């Protein structure tokens, strides 16, 4: 059976999510800022046209934002995560096999659909996603994943394609390869691109004309796989759903510099509780916890300190209380007075499914009670928002909290945040 893949990619995903619930932003430059409102991490086409660069620090565009020439938003991952889920669920009715590749990209296995009118089918997918979620997407369809990725890029750029490009005809595939610069090929990094250009390989087509041996010699087996994929021979299958994570890390830079133990303790306890919640969501427990703290390594004035401490707990757990307790023990061991801390984090490893825990003979913790309590807390968090009920060490000052001055509401996940319709 001939293979056939589609890559569905959301156009300017973060900006599009904001626009669904704020349609006045359509046609206007929109940027999304990183955690802590530090720099630009996503842009609408209009913002790109204004010359705003990826990674541009916020202070450089503050003028544009304050004069309302650009709309800026703090990243709202709760919203983007939910909208991403909706897009993927919508896609899942078009094929039984799909691979969620990132928050805004998904490979669909369309092998077996070759007898259908692929262009129509791709358009139907695009229109359904747009209708159900409000998110505009582009689709590239081709016999291999690498070619589908390439088709997707061209679909976005070309006004004739208008967001959908099907590459099955050998002549079209060749034209597409010729039109793609080697720098823009999936899996070719900057170093390989420079290396190849020195050898007169400028387009994806030039690359497909290289000999397999030469590619293996200079670019390992990964390069060979890419070569075959671009020649139309499928080597990359859909990857299954990601297995339960082996390690979970929650770590943030602080909104302001933190120098008291109490503030650091609040932050660290909160991160430990976040880890605990993530563990419970994937129905697993962790046995090992690591806490680390950093000062700002980019500051030349401040004295520097980096430290971490790992604790192996007696029994694997996913309880807020236990994890925060051990996180604080670890933090106490590494905390030093007199530094301005910029970041702390909690990392849990040795993760096991919650039904395969090795218990301790001398265990004094009432695990039944803990798990019931955590169930109640998760329930309350779902209903009233994260951290409404918390372990007291998580504190109430939150001086360490991230700066997110331009955050949009949680339109789809919190009842108090749903949009308003005006009937006047």
């Amino acid at each position, binding site marked *: 059976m001939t293979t056939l893949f589609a890559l569905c990619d959301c156009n300017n995903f973060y900006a599009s999510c904001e626009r669904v619930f704020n349609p006045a932003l359509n046609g206007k430059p929109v940027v999304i800022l990183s955690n802590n409102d530090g720099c630009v991490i996503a842009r609408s086409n209009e913002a790109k046209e204004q010359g705003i660069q990826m990674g541009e620090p916020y202070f450089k565009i503050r003028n544009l934002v304050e004069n309302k020439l650009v709309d800026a938003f703090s990243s709202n991952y709760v919203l983007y995560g939910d909208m991403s889920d*909706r897009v993927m669920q919508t896609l899942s009715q078009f094929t039984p096999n799909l691979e969620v590749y990132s928050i805004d990209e998904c490979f669909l296995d369309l092998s077996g659909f070759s007898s259908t009118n692929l262009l129509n089918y791709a358009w139907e997918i695009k229109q359904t996603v747009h*209708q159900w979620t409000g998110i505009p997407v582009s689709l590239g369809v081709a016999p291999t994943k690498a070619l589908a990725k390439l088709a997707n890029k061209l679909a976005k750029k070309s006004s004739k394609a208008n967001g959908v490009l099907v590459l099955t005809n050998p002549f079209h595939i060749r034209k597409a390869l010729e039109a793609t610069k080697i720098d823009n090929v999936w899996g070719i990094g900057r170093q390989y691109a420079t290396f190849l250009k020195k050898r007169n390989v400028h387009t994806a087509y030039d690359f497909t004309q290289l000999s397999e041996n030469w590619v293996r010699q200079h670019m390992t087996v990964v390069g060979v796989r890419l070569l075959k994929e671009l020649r139309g021979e499928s080597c990359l299958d859909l990857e299954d759903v990601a297995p339960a994570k082996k390690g979970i890390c929650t770590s943030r830079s602080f909104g302001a510099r933190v120098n008291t133990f109490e503030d650091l303790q609040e932050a660290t306890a909160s991160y430990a509780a976040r880890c605990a919640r993530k563990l419970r969501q994937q129905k697993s427990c962790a046995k090992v916890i690591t806490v680390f703290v950093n000062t700002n390594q980019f500051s030349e004035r401040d004295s520097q300190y980096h430290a971490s401490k790992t604790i192996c707990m007696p029994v694997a757990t996913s309880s807020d209380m236990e994890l925060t307790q051990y996180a604080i023990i670890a933090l106490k061991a590494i905390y030093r007075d007199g530094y301005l801390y910029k970041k702390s984090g909690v990392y849990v490893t040795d993760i096991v499914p919650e*039904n395969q825990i090795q218990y301790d003979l001398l265990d004094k913790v009432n695990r039944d009670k803990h798990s019931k309590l955590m169930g109640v807390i998760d329930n309350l968090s779902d209903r009233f928002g994260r951290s409404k009920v918390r372990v007291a060490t998580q504190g109430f000052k939150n001086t360490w909290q991230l700066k997110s001055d331009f955050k949009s509401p949680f339109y789809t996940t919190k009842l108090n945040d*749903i949009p308003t*319709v005006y*009937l006047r």
Partner: protein
Amino acid sequence: MCRAKVIPLSPLQLEHLDFDYLESIKIPFFASYISAGFPSPADDHMEERIDIGKHLIQNPTSTYMMRVKGTSMIDANIHDGDILVIDKSLKPADGLPVVCFLDGEFTVKTFKRIGDKAFLAPANPAYEPIELTEEMDMRIWGVVAWVLHKPVKQ
């Protein structure tokens, strides 16, 4: 004094249990767990309780909610403070309230079809219906599937 008894075991009597097997054992669900006595006659008739969410939301992927502010749709039974359950996957049908984006804000109008023309009509005589044309940059955002309304304003 008591002597330990030796129980002879043949390997054939030992049942091999691996973890996969253990995991797949499911505990049956009963309405009552009386260890002795008469079993509840309801055990055979256990069903899930009614989930109002499932009833209100046919297609969770395309369903969103909005809160009403204002009174211009009272005649269409939509009141200030109500919650609207909106399904973006539904096609507007004659007489259904729809959410649209007009003059910079979300609003609700009744979708009306007269002949081969489509209109957005307010439920308020002070306003004129708006005719929907191809050139208009006006998209219907979603169709109102349910209006959640409390009997007494709180």
